Every structure is written in C-alpha cells, then in structure tokens.
C-alpha cells in the first residue's frame, strides 16, 4: 500500500509533504492538514498556522506535561487524546490513532518578521507515525511515498 507525498516548491530547497485528514471529537476537528515529513520530530504536532485555520480552541484541551522544544522558540503544548490521522493510499484509506500534540507559540508583542517566521512553519508528521512505514524519497525525480506492508 502506497501513500503518495509531494515536494512543496515554496520551501528552499523543496520540502517533503504529505496530506492527511485529522479527526478528533474531543477537539471538534475534521480537517485536511499538509504535513511536513519530519524524520527529526519524535511526534506529530499541529502548529500555529493550522491551529488558526481550524479555529481550534486550545483552552478546551489538556496541557501537555512535557513541553516540546526546537520549533522556533517556546511553544505551549496541548494534547488531543482521541485523534486519528487518515491518509489516502492506492488501496483506499489508511487510518491510525495517535496522541496528537498541538503547539502554539506566544506571539504577543512579537514583531511582524518574527510572527511570519513562526506562522510559515508547517505542522509536522513525526516518527511515531513515520516509523509504521518505509519512506521513499527521490527529490531529484520529485517523487515521494510512504509504503506500508504487513
């Protein structure tokens, strides 16, 4: 089973992405998210741009005990415990439960440049999901896919 990704040319150099639908009753969301495939990230995290786009009220969510570091400064982290991620594959839909992290930067009083720098950071698809697949990445050919086999 193959899940096709793509390289986003807005990033320099083009960055590997895959689209997925995130579903959660707890957070009241069912949204498509374009995830940066980040083999350096331990977990999957929704970040500011997508959080704002979804109109997600983080006040309703549980604050994570562990804070996440390394995403452009200090991030308030919340947890969605009933989330599911849905990918479209060549054999139908592939659905997986996950503990979803939501990361929100404090942008109060931030300068416009800092704000932009933070708001262009995409949500990250981390290794807890990526490790279920084999990742094939051919940047020179512009091809990218995740493959799952039992």
């Amino acid at each position, binding site marked *: 089973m193959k899940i096709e990704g*793509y390289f986003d*040319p*807005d*990033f*320099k150099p083009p*960055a590997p992405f895959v*689209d997925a*639908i995130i579903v959660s009753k707890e957070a009241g969301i069912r949204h*498509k998210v*374009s995830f*940066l495939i*980040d083999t*350096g*990230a331990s977990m999957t995290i929704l970040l500011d*741009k997508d959080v*704002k*786009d979804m*109109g997600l009220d983080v006040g309703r969510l549980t604050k994570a005990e562990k804070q996440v570091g*390394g*995403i*452009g400064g200090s991030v308030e982290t919340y947890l969605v415990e009933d989330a599911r991620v*849905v990918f*479209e594959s060549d054999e*139908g*839909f592939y659905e997986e439960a996950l503990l979803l992290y939501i990361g929100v930067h404090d942008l109060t009083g931030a300068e*416009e440049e800092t704000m*932009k720098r933070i*708001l*262009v*950071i995409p949500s*990250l698809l981390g290794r807890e999901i990526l490790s279920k697949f084999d990742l094939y990445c051919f940047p020179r050919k512009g091809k990218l896919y995740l493959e799952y086999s039992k």
Partner: protein
Amino acid sequence: MQEIKNKEYREIFSKSKENREWFRKNREKLLEEYSEQFVLISEQRVIAYSPDLDRLIKMVSPKYREKEHLIKYLSKEGIELVL
C-alpha cells in the same frame, strides 16, 4: 456509515489535490501578484489575501472556511526552515 465517511474523505483529498495543482500551475503569477502575503485558495482561485494571517482568516466567510481550502505564504525568496 463507513461509506459516508469514505465519500467525505475522498472529496476532501480530491479537492485538496485540485487546489494544490492549481496553485502549482499558477505559482509564478501568484508570486508576482501576492508576494510576501498569505493567500487562501478555494475552488481553484484566490479567495482572500493579506500579509497578516489572522486578518486573512477573519476576512473569509464561513462558506469558504468550511470548504476545502489551502493557505499559502508566497515569498519570492522561498521559505527556509531549520527545525
């Protein structure tokens, strides 16, 4: 029930792909017109644009917010990230 869900998922992925393809084809033109701004694309056209993401989101009516859409930041320099 599963069929309804699958139909909904199929529609989301298909519209998302259409918007992404449209963006890819028109990227150079959009870069000229909306450089250093966020743009919201739905139904293969630009619905709103602003240098301020919060303002952009407020500008768009719920009719478009609920539809499958794409928010992109257009920068001639390209986005560089080190996470």
